[in-house]
């Protein structure tokens, strides 16, 4: 077997579709002229739920300070893109509803700030809808098969079960899309991908030709039917797969626990409200006791509101992140599968070539060596991505869990304050009564 050539990690090499290229050398996916709004997109003045859409914006940059304010950078993020050397910042916000005769959909504002020369301007602001994000993900997956592309939130939601236009759903989805873009922007290879560039900068993405070919499953077509069987997967990759399976299982369990907690909290809330109202109706019956009883009813009511906030946070912020990580794990497993395929193809070709050489001394063809290169490239990319993914995972979960703890602490603080102020009022009144008695 030919000796393995060592490759340096980090700088992408060789593969036709990866690597940095100046933006001027890449054909822009859209035609040169500005495309007007497609006919049929009318914008209604009033809508329940969200304020309606304004015309798709030209690249007016978002204000610098607001962009920085909205960034949720974690200063402790280690690795290739520490906050000091970051030169590309992306944010998703400002959801708007668009109503046309054909369909209703939501667009989000995607704001970019960068010092990279691959971009013509330092700032961009475009509007994109979910379809556009999906297009980007598929393009990235295709063009960077050796890299882990972050997941998108679920594409299809059951109509009638989930309200696609409710504030909560849109808010949750928007946060996930923001996370997706940030992860791409932080990736040393993916962030230089021309499709990503186009996504951030083009006024209107013409993507219809891309989408029709691919299903939601989105497996890259290149490696699905290579037909080679992997002989021996190196132990480290097996360990990765096992880790991912177990981790995925734990996340699923946590999801179920969180849902159960939500259910219990909801039932608790129902009973608590009823409980508070009994104090109120009793208060109406009493004289001296009226104020204390009303006071208790008031404190109970405050606790109800605090519990509502806690539950809302759990379902809006906690659960979606858990679920997104399950998708992320699936993405990683896909990359591992592709790596296996790549290795299998190489081993298969090599074996065939060696046999032929033994037969008629035909030298091993160059393609086989190229395959070997591919494998080694893939392994290097994957290792780097794995490390990055592990680091991000640690950061993300640290943030998620401390957030959960904070929300619970905040809930108890609100309740405590409600009861303490009641005690103060009641005890003050007691001393008041006593002094008036002795006088």
């Amino acid at each position, binding site marked *: 077997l030919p000796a393995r050539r060592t490759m340096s990690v980090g700088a992408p090499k060789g593969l036709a579709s990866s690597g940095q290229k100046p933006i001027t050398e890449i054909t822009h996916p859209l035609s040169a002229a500005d495309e007007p709004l497609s006919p049929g997109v009318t914008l209604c003045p009033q809508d329940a739920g969200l304020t309606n859409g304004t015309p798709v914006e030209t690249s007016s940059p978002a204000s610098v300070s607001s962009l920085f304010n909205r960034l949720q950078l974690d200063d402790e993020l280690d690795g290739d893109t520490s906050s000091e050397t970051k030169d590309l910042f992306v944010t998703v916000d400002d959801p708007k509803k668009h109503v046309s005769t054909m369909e209703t959909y939501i667009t989000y504002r995607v704001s970019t700030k960068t010092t990279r020369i691959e971009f013509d301007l330092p700032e961009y602001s475009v509007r994109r809808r979910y379809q556009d994000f999906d297009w980007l993900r598929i393009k990235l997956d295709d063009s960077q098969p050796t890299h882990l592309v972050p997941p998108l939130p679920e594409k299809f939601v059951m109509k009638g079960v989930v309200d696609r236009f409710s504030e909560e759903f849109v808010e949750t989805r928007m946060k996930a899309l923001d996370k997706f873009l940030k992860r791409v922007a932080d990736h040393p290879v993916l962030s230089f991908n021309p499709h990503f560039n186009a996504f951030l900068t083009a006024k209107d993405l013409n993507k219809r030709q891309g989408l029709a070919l691919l299903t939601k499953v989105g497996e890259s077509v290149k490696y699905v039917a290579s037909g080679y069987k992997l002989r021996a997967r190196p132990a480290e990759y097996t360990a990765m797969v096992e880790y991912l399976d177990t981790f995925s299982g734990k996340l699923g369990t946590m999801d179920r626990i969180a849902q159960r907690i939500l259910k219990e909290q909801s039932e608790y809330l129902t009973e608590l409200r009823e409980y508070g109202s009994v104090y109120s109706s009793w208060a109406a019956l009493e004289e001296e006791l009226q104020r204390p009883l009303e006071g208790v009813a008031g*404190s109970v009511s405050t606790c109800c509101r605090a519990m509502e906030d806690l539950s809302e946070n759990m379902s809006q912020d906690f659960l979606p992140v858990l679920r997104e990580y399950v998708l992320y794990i699936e993405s990683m497993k896909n990359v591992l599968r592709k790596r296996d395929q790549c290795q299998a193809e190489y081993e298969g070709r090599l074996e065939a070539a060696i046999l032929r050489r033994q037969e008629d001394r035909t030298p091993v063809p160059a393609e086989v060596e190229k395959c070997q290169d591919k494998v080694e490239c893939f392994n290097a990319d994957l290792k780097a991505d794995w490390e990055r993914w592990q680091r991000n995972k640690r950061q993300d979960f640290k943030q998620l869990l401390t957030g959960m703890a904070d929300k619970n602490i905040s809930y108890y603080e609100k309740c405590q304050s409600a009861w303490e102020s009641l005690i103060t009022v009641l005890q003050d009144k007691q001393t008041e009564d006593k002094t008036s008695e002795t006088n």
Partner: protein
Amino acid sequence: MADDGRDESLATDEEDSEPSCEEGASLSTAMVDDGSTLIRRLEICVAEAEKRTGKNAVNMGENYTVYLIETRPMDAVNDGRNPAPDSLWRRYSEFELLRNYLLVTYPCVIVPPLPEKRAEFVWHKLSADNMDPDFVERRRVGLENFLLRVASHPVLSNDKILHHFLTEEHGWKEAVYDTGFQAKADSRLRALSATFRVRNPDKRFVEMKHYSDELQSHTSQLLRARARVADRLYGVYKVHGNYGRVFSEWSAIEREMGDGLQSAGHHMDAFAASIDDILEEEEHYADQLKEYLSYAEALRAVCRKHELTQFELEVCTQDLVTKRQQREELATGMVRTFSLKGVTNKLFGAEAPEQREARLKLLEELICEGQDGVKDKTLECQEQVERGLVDMQRFKEQKDKDLKEALISYALMQVSMCKKGIQVWSNAKECFLKM
């Protein structure tokens, strides 16, 4: 339990240590009354509970609990002499007997209630078993409370049977039965449930009866709602325990995150476990509500007693009026009202003059008796009204004070629960930050 007039606020009573006679209930200082009530002369407490086995009335083996009543003369305590207490054992049924006796003997008094016979308004995880140690402990507290309240009541505290109950173990049952209260007990029960219409009840008693119904309704509603809330809260806390397990399992596959996750998991377990004590503590609040639920019944009974007496008075009075009318008819020969005598007279002729004289004489006697009866009954009724009003006023003040303190102590319990919650989650957060 010295009567220094200081109102021990329950706010200072954060640590619920083993109750001793000195601590007693802060209730006791609040119950000191003017007048020489028993509690000023005698320090009383129900110190312990013990399980016994014995044979019951049908000679079957049974398990039951007895409670130790300890008493010491107050002047000795105040002098700081600290003598050993006198003590005797009584079981719940004896307390019941005492209370029934008091109910019958003092119908104008709102007799303090006993702790519940069976556990009611139970949220599902809590034991409904009478032998459960937590239940026994709360019952002990309730029995002590009962004795303290009775001993500080201006009327009840002077009762000899009460004194006997507290100080002499033997012969008490016989003494109670000797009072003959049982005969009155049955008629009292019948009167409580009878329906009769009173024409002129005292408005204040009508109002009070209405209030007692409302109080009963609201406290029982509250107790039910509270039990349901407790049930749900239990569920919320316990489910968090699952986090403990999954964090532990997850930590096994992690390198840097492992320790933080593992420790956080322990805190989640602690969180889930903390609810048991929290809810057990809350049962004391429920007991205070239950006391007033029972008090509402006692209040109602007093109002009913008034109604009954008033009704009897009205019956007496009406009877007197009727008899006077009959006399008038007999004397003047004029028949005003329809009567069988009148009809038979018309049909068969009037009776002989001697017969008439005899009847008139009888009537006069009856009228005399009736007049005395009405006078007595009126007096009785007035006395009852006076006594009843005094006790109702006393009850009202006591109720307002007790319930307000109960609400404050409930609020304190909630604060304590919140502090525990903050503590646990802060600990967990520390662990997460170390991940």
